């Protein structure tokens, strides 16, 4: 795949390296250090850093502002953008705002439903859906035009990503859905947290068989478990999550004070196994409020040092 944008993430992937991304959740407040401190912890171990967009529908510092903080640190942000909170006017406007700071990566999502968060009584927007947002960014970039048809002066240069959840239902459309996202213009994919490795490998094989991995870079989503309690919570309470019983048992059988360490080990083992899976182009390590562990995971998984690209 040829490089189309100045994105460092895209260059690393195009050069054939296994890419590593991670993410930082912005704070529920305005302290810039909440972002810069997290970024400092992981910056040498990752190629790019996602900033989540009001994740779990809780009001937070906006993704764009937090991405600008990263940019000011000389880092490579991935702007997460959900279609839940903004209409096409605001989405396009924020894309231009991000482009004005030379933010070169975006990932387009629909977002958790607003009923989960602190604005359950608010409106949700969903003027576009996530695929249509992918189309929109590609149109703005490739055609240099707004959805309304007018020309954009200095169009955004963004590497466009989308999410995929191989574990949501119905499974039979999970690969067709990936194909649909690629058809909409997605150039890279970050997956839902992977715990059921067999099912993920089955999904990857189907994607490979359809030739989809020739058209899109798939970054496998990894989230270390901090405890057996977290594993149970993820299994039972988080929508679209597939946590096998063996994994919960392995953590539950570990003494409490060692569970966090075991969680890291499980994550490292999973990365090592998935590194060998055909079509896996890299890893997206989401250590939720546990960013300090990202360097250890990446080093132990043999993904450090990170490649240099120009």
């Amino acid at each position, binding site marked *: 795949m040829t490089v189309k944008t100045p994105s460092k993430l895209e260059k690393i992937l195009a050069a054939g390296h296994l890419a590593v991304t991670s993410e930082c959740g912005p704070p529920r407040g305005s302290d810039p250090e909440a972002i810069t401190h997290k970024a400092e912890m992981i910056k040498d171990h990752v190629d790019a850093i996602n900033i989540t967009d009001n994740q779990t529908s809780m009001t937070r510092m906006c993704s764009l502002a937090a991405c600008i903080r990263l940019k000011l640190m000389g880092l490579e942000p991935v702007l997460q953008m959900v279609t839940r909170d903004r209409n096409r006017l605001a989405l396009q406007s924020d894309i231009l705002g991000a482009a004005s700071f030379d933010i070169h990566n975006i990932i387009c999502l629909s977002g958790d439903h607003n009923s989960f968060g602190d604005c359950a009584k608010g409106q949700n927007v969903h003027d576009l*859906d996530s*695929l249509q947002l992918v189309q929109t960014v590609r149109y703005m970039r490739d055609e240099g035009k707004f959805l309304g048809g007018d020309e954009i002066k200095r169009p955004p240069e963004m590497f466009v990503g989308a999410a995929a959840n191989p574990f949501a*239902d119905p499974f039979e459309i999970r690969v067709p859905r990936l194909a649909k996202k690629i058809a909409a213009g997605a150039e890279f994919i970050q997956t839902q947290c992977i715990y059921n490795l067999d099912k993920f490998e089955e999904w990857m094989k189907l994607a490979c068989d359809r030739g989809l991995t020739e058209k899109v870079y798939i970054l496998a989503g990894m989230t270390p478990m901090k405890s057996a309690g977290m594993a149970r919570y993820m299994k039972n309470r988080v929508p679209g999550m597939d946590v096998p019983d063996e994994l919960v048992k392995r953590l539950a059988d570990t003494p409490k004070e060692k569970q966090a360490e075991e969680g890291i080990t499980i994550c490292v083992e999973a990365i090592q196994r998935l590194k060998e899976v055909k079509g896996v182009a890299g890893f997206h390590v989401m250590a939720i409020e546990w960013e300090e562990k990202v360097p250890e995971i990446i080093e132990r998984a043999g993904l450090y040092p990170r490649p240099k690209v120009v």
Partner: protein
Amino acid sequence: MIVADKKPIEEIIETTRNFKRLLILGCNECVTVCEAGGKKEVGILASALRMNALNQGREVKIDEITLERQCDHEYLEEIRNVVDQYDGILSIACGVGVQFTAEKYQATPVLPGVNTKFMGATEKRGLWVERCQGCGQCILATTGGICPVSRCAKRLFNGPCGGSGNGKCEISKEVDCAWQLIIDRMKALGTLEDYEKLSPIKDWSTDRAGGPRKVVREDVQL
């Protein structure tokens, strides 16, 4: 039909507190079917308000009328001769009926007695479910006859999202995933290959985004 639900009696007591002569106005259409605002409910509500007034030691005159419809001029005209007898009307029609009544009788306060919910169907007695949001540009032909605007919590045109599990929506195990239903129906129709067609960006100008809407049919106007 338009589905409505009864307002809590406490709210109605509060909003009608100052009326001495009250007309409770029912509607014989949708709200009768969904058992929120028909003749039967007019009677029950009138009895409750009379009883409450009696308990409070207040004297009120409460009358009951149920019109064929409150969304047509000709039926609303039927109360023209009696409207002056009341210092308030409690309409238990949908929001359309309440407003049409209020527009017609400018000098009389018209209050709503139900909460108008959605356009839906009777799944079974006592269970009404939403099926349409009146977006003004029907796409049911491309979605297996199941509407993602009214039935997907994120009104996704290219669903399902990652929150679909065991056929249910991420917001509740009580809510079907509309896209699971669409896919099931496409399979039953043998049109699953259509799933991969991208649904274009929606023109919402025919929805409420375009401002208050109207349908003009000159061919049927008198």
